[in-house]
């Protein structure tokens, strides 16, 4: 089956299914439940964005759901706004509250974040109860109108269903689009490794707030669907913490990170209690037990289970073959086949221009009483390979962390090409052309090799949130260019053919290469490498040396921290030696090798087999 047919067939089947569902379900009661499921599903899709994509646990989703419901209900009942306009109000007011939640919780993670979101949700619910002049307090708002199309009121559940179904499809489409886009990848980068996301050029603050806002907006829209269907009545107790937990269970049960999973989870948990009603008094117990059983046997949710089944796997391969990503990768690969198109060797920039690229003056970092780095001066000249060596704990990694913006120096100045980058955030420094790798590899482990390298280009690409969701031609062109470049760099480090492998499934040495690729793809002027040869054997180290020279030939300056002297002494044009946070020696490999202080503190003498 060819691509266009496949891409048409699935939506066609979907449309037919949506159209005939109200004909199959004749009971208003069940139709109401379906509408309720859809309302939950949209809120869950939002939770899936903040939790599944961006990895931030939010337990305030029901409160945003309520904010959406109330915004539209108040505007339509008290101010006579049309229901269709209430839809936008629901989305944007909730998104605004999402931003309010996002800002104070930026410094929190894990259970602290979860607790803060619980508190936020409770505050919102209290406002709904107590701002009686606006919300009518615990009495709730009654007689919320239905939407109209011309002179036809969509009051019957079977009619409102079409509004809900179309919304669900659009919001699902948006969530799925987002997953494979610049913004979606930034979210996932934050989830996988926030530190590496920052040094790859992602403004983690901005994108975390964006994830909260978007997630709240989805919930708000779900609230709009809820307010204008079913009972046409809302009251604060619906939007409680308990409901937030249920939404969380829906998202996790369906499959964290999967949009379709969220819908399945929401539908299942809305329908299941109703189906179990025949059990009379004990139905809630069976419902809870059912959830526990599902979580035990499907730890990655229903979506995870389907994915791991042979049928699910085949389905994915069928759907992903000829996907945009696959086609763009294939196109990039075919360009690379001609050897001339391989990377240009711009040797001119290599081997020292005597031009200073990076200046470090009096750099210091204290951790409490510990002086990890204590007043270091150094210079890195453009086109050189410079090494920073010293005993364990002498402050090498701390310097790299300050250079890449992960640590704020206690004192001192860092200047790149005359511009001070001393107290800049990691993504700003990356934009200035400084990229790095980490001592303990920090890849976006659950993402594909290709996605890792695409995230490395974050700072060099533009697609906004809207472009990431709606994917206009300009966004698709940018994606294609990014993929071509990603393929070039993967070819360069020898990872061609692995682009769709999961990053943490690669062997250790390959993971190091991938990290290098992710750094290179951001077009750095200065590449900071923290122990690139750690865990590589002699043959792999030799290959790395070859690669370092090639990187240098492309005009990229390298500052590396490394303990493998066979590497350091052979590649470095200049070596700086640290001990206890201070510089103890500096010079060429030959000079440093024979410096007595360096031998005593660091190099030692080889053991013999006595």
């Amino acid at each position, binding site marked *: 089956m060819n691509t266009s047919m496949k891409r048409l067939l699935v939506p066609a089947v979907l449309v037919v299914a949506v159209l005939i569902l109200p004909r199959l379900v004749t009971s208003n009661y069940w139709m109401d439940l379906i509408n309720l499921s859809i309302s939950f599903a949209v809120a869950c899709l939002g939770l899936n964005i903040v939790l599944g994509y961006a990895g931030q646990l939010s337990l305030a989703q029901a409160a945003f759901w309520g904010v959406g419901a109330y915004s539209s209900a108040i505007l339509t009942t008290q101010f006579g706004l049309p229901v269709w306009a209430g839809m936008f109000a629901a989305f944007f007011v909730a998104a605004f509250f999402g931003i309010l939640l996002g800002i104070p919780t930026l410094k929190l993670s894990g259970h602290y974040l979860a607790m803060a979101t619980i508190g936020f949700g409770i505050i919102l619910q209290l406002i709904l109860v107590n701002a009686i002049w606006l919300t009518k307090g615990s009495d709730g708002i009654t007689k919320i109108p239905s939407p109209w199309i011309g002179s036809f009121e969509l009051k019957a559940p079977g009619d409102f269903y079409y509004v809900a179904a179309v919304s669900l499809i659009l919001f699902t489409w948006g969530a799925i689009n987002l997953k494979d886009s610049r913004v979606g990848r930034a979210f996932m980068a934050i989830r996988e490794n926030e530190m590496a996301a920052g040094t790859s050029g992602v403004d983690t603050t901005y994108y975390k707030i964006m994830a909260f806002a978007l997630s709240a907006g989805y919930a708000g829209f779900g609230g709009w669907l809820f307010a204008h269907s079913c009972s046409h009545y809302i009251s604060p107790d619906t939007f409680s913490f308990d409901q937030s937990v249920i939404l969380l269970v829906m998202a996790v049960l369906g499959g964290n990170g999967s949009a379709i999973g969220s819908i399945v989870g929401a539908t299942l948990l809305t329908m299941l209690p109703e189906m179990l009603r025949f059990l009379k008094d004990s139905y809630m117990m069976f419902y809870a037990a059912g959830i526990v059983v599902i979580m035990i046997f499907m730890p990655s949710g229903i979506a995870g289970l389907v994915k791991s089944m042979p049928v699910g796997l085949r389905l994915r391969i069928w759907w992903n073959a000829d996907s945009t990503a696959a086609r763009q990768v294939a196109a990039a690969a075919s360009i690379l086949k001609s050897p001339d198109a391989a990377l240009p060797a711009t040797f001119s920039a290599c*081997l020292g221009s005597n031009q200073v690229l990076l200046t470090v003056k009096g750099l210091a970092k204290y951790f409490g009483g510990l002086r990890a780095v204590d007043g270091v001066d150094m210079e890195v000249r453009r086109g050189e390979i410079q090494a920073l060596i010293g*005993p364990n704990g002498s402050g090498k990694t701390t310097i790299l962390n300050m250079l890449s913006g992960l640590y704020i120096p206690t004192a001192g100045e860092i200047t790149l090409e005359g511009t001070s980058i001393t107290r800049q955030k990691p993504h700003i420094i990356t934009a200035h052309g400084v990229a790095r790798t980490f*001592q303990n590899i920090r890849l976006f482990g659950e993402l594909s090799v290709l996605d890792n390298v695409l995230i490395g280009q974050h700072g060099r690409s533009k697609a906004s949130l809207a472009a990431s969701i709606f994917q206009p031609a300009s966004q698709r062109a940018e994606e294609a260019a990014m993929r071509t470049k990603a393929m070039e760099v993967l070819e360069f480090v020898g990872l061609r053919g692995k682009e769709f492998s999961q990053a943490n499934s690669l062997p250790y040495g390959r993971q190091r290469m991938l990290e290098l690729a992710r750094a290179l793809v951001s077009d750095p002027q200065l590449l900071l490498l923290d122990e690139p040869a750690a*865990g590589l054997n002699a043959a792999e180290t030799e290959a790395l040396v070859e690669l370092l020279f090639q990187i240098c030939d492309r005009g990229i300056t390298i500052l590396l921290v490394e*303990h493998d002297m066979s590497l350091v002494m052979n590649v470095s044009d200049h070596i700086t030696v640290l001990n206890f946070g201070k510089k103890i020696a500096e010079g060429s490999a030959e000079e440093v090798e024979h410096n007595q202080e360096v031998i005593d503190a660091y190099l030692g003498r080889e*053991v*013999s087999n006595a």
Partner: protein
Amino acid sequence: MLKLEGVETWYGAIQAIKGISLDVSQGEIVALLGANGAGKSTTIKTITGLLKATKGRIEFMGKDITEMEAEDIAEIGIACVPEGRHIFPGLTVMDNLLLGTTPRKRDSKGDIQKDLDHFFEIFPQLQEFKESLGWQLSGGQQQMLAIGRGLMSGSKLLLMDEPSLGLAPIMVQEVFRVIKEINKAGTTILLVEQNARMALLIANRGFVLETGKVMLADTAANLLANEEMKAHYLGAHAHVKEARQRRRSKAEGR
């Protein structure tokens, strides 16, 4: 002392080791070498019971331990210094070391204290960090702590997975000196290393793995002299020097 016969292990859908047989005798240092992905760490994880062999047999001191759980294997006298340190970051250095003594249920406090003193003799650097939390140590110090935790178990067999990873040359020499020392004191050692030359300098015998199989097994001295080994694992760094020469001459030609 330790014997593996035709052991096969799967890592998810990938068969990481495909029938490995090796043996370690009492009092030896045996080196396990090979490229990344050759199956060294998987072998270690299979011996310690973290992964289960799907085929083959593992014997320790005449006892079949193939099906045993990791904690039981630790108790009968196999300790492990895992790759990548894996110390307990939120606990103090002291607590990390004391946790290492978990399998020693019968030993007196005095014995444990003696071993602690011995540890701080070997790694005096850590003396002043006794009450520091694990994460506050530098990479090299963490590695020393991981070795120390392994030692504290008082086990008869110590498996070490890349103990020299990320250490300064002087510390690498120190670690290898310590390995020799603890071996002399009676602990048998199975050592996984990327630094093949250093490992073979202190080992009695070596096994070289390639794509999940034992490709070479010989005495350390023979392996050190083996041409194939020199080319692949010992690294004469001929290429590196050559590349550097090329780069130099290019620069001068400019």
